[in-house]
């Protein structure tokens, strides 16, 4: 009897030590993926730079202050990435540009996950006519190239940071709606949903507590990759003049303004271009890593 009790407490203690939730398990698998960790490291650095941008470079005196005497200078100790056509330090502008890019990327994806996820969950859970109506509207949205849709929305609302995020967010709503709908469809018919109905849970509770947490994995993966897409779209829209307005720094806009000087001032376009490339690479690495880590079939 006493030995039984002792054994009981022992297993209890052991359990507490290795208590792992599903997410801890995912993190453990993600840590094994070197490329994903590299991407995560790059992202962490980027996020930190964006948060502490004001400490690294003063916005009013360095980032937007023109110094025409020193325009289009190559990289030097004073200006590590050189200066642009108004003599502004490119390094400082890129750091502040990271703020805009990351904010737009994350918030735009947030908007599309919330709207698309809700629509997809409703369509998948209730099915029937409601499903048909929602998904056909999504199909109409999908028929328009997303960048064109974003251009149309920004031109209608007028260029500003908020409108940019709304435009990019809305233009990628259909893809999230589709992903969420398909995973809800496969989860809806599982027995634990029936069991949840059998304990008297209402539809809202079943969707929020049982279906969405189980349908989250593919959305997270798509979201990470989607941030990269949103940053690219922001850069694209700024490039054609519909995004961030001068003198505010943004990678795509910097790329656009540097274009006329490409022949004799390569650094003006190269560094913002590299920043876009590296950020998107990092996000894709993390997204790929997450997809592998979240796939239960790859469990060892």
């Amino acid at each position: 009897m006493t030995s039984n009790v002792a054994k009981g407490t022992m297993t209890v203690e052991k359990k507490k030590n290795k208590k792992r939730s599903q997410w801890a398990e995912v993190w453990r698998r993600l840590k094994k993926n070197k490329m994903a960790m590299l991407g995560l490291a790059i992202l962490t650095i980027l996020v930190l730079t964006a948060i502490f941008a004001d400490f690294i470079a003063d916005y009013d005196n360095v980032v937007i202050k023109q110094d025409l005497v020193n325009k289009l200078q190559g990289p030097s100790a004073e200006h590590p990435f050189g200066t642009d056509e108004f003599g502004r330090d490119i390094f400082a502008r890129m750091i502040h540009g990271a703020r805009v890019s990351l904010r737009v990327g994350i918030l735009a994806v947030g908007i599309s996950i919330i709207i698309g996820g809700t629509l997809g969950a409703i369509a998948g859970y209730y099915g029937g006519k409601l499903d048909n109506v929602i998904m056909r509207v999504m199909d109409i949205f999908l028929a328009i190239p997303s960048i064109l849709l974003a251009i149309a929305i920004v031109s209608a609302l007028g260029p500003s940071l908020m409108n940019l995020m709304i435009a990019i967010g809305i233009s990628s709503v259909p893809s999230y709606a589709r992903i969420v709908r398909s995973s809800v469809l496969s989860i809806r018919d599982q027995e634990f949903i029936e069991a949840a109905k059998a304990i008297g849970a209402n539809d809202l509770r079943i969707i929020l507590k049982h279906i969405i947490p189980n349908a989250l994995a593919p959305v997270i993966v798509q979201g990470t990759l989607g941030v990269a897409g949103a940053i690219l779209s922001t850069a694209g829209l700024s490039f054609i003049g519909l995004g961030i307005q001068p003198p505010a720094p943004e990678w795509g806009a910097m790329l656009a303004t540097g274009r006329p000087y490409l022949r004799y001032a390569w650094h003006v376009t190269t560094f913002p271009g590299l920043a876009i490339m590296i950020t998107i690479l990092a996000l894709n690495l993390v997204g790929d890593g997450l997809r592998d880590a979240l796939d239960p079939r790859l469990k060892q």
Partner: protein
Amino acid sequence: MSKKELLKIEDLSIYYITEDGTVKAVNGIDIKLNKGETLGLVGETGAGKTTTALGIMRLIPNPPGKIMSGKIEFEGKDLLNIPEEEMRMIRGNKISMIFQDPMTSLNPVMTVGEQIAEVIEIHQDLNKQEAMKKAEEMLELVGIPAARVNDYPHQFSGGMKQRVVIAISLACNPQLLIADEPTTALDVTIQAQVLDLMNNLKEEFNTAMILITHDLGVVSEVCDKVAIMYAGEIVEAASLKQLFENPRHPYTLGLFGSIPNLDEEVDRLKPITGLMPDPTNLPTGCKFHPRCPYGTDICAKQEPKAIEIEDGHKVKCLIYEGLVDAEVKR
């Protein structure tokens, strides 16, 4: 044990209406269950046992399922005529259900404690901490250390998961527990443990139970009454003793004939010949006649009525209406 009537099902018919035809899953069954009693619902795969259970819970997927006729009275209330809101307050609270496969009936991303606490939160006026505390008590009650309350279902074995499912179903102290083949997915050794546990808890809470199974051995251990289902009908209903000592319907006899018996030496078991009829195209007359060793022409034409051959022992067979001359023997 009080002899108060808890559940009364009259002439219940449930069809699944699909494009390929109407599946007549349940055809006019009658069930009576008193408080604290256990009824064994026995039948082959596809006999309509699970559909009956889901019908009582009003969880038949609609479409394609539809309750065509009948009455389900629970504590004097007609469950088929109350609003969905009221039905939700009964599910999990007064009537709860144990599903067949414990592997899939728990949510993989919620801890077992949260899942037990959920049903308590829905039906009782308790806050989260109190519900979690009650969940721990329920875990202890089904023989799982309370310290595992924050574990996830994948950290449990099949038998342990079924214990968790039992804890969920009994958390609100229901009047009626519907167990849909609760031991089918488990090892034989674990089966006995789980059955014992259910039996003890049922006695403790004085819960009535409908045990759905195809295992007559399980029935003999747990049940007070037995109903044998075939093709959506109850062909024989009796007390446990009556059915095991004096089975009368040819189908029931067929079931007994296909179980190995330790007392008698037989070379071969006698399985029931043929297969379950296609539920979209049931035979006329007695549904069992194509497979029945005593079947005659009249069986194909006339549908048998339920005849009470002794107190509480009903059989649906033309032999007992005196229309077919045969002596039914084991």
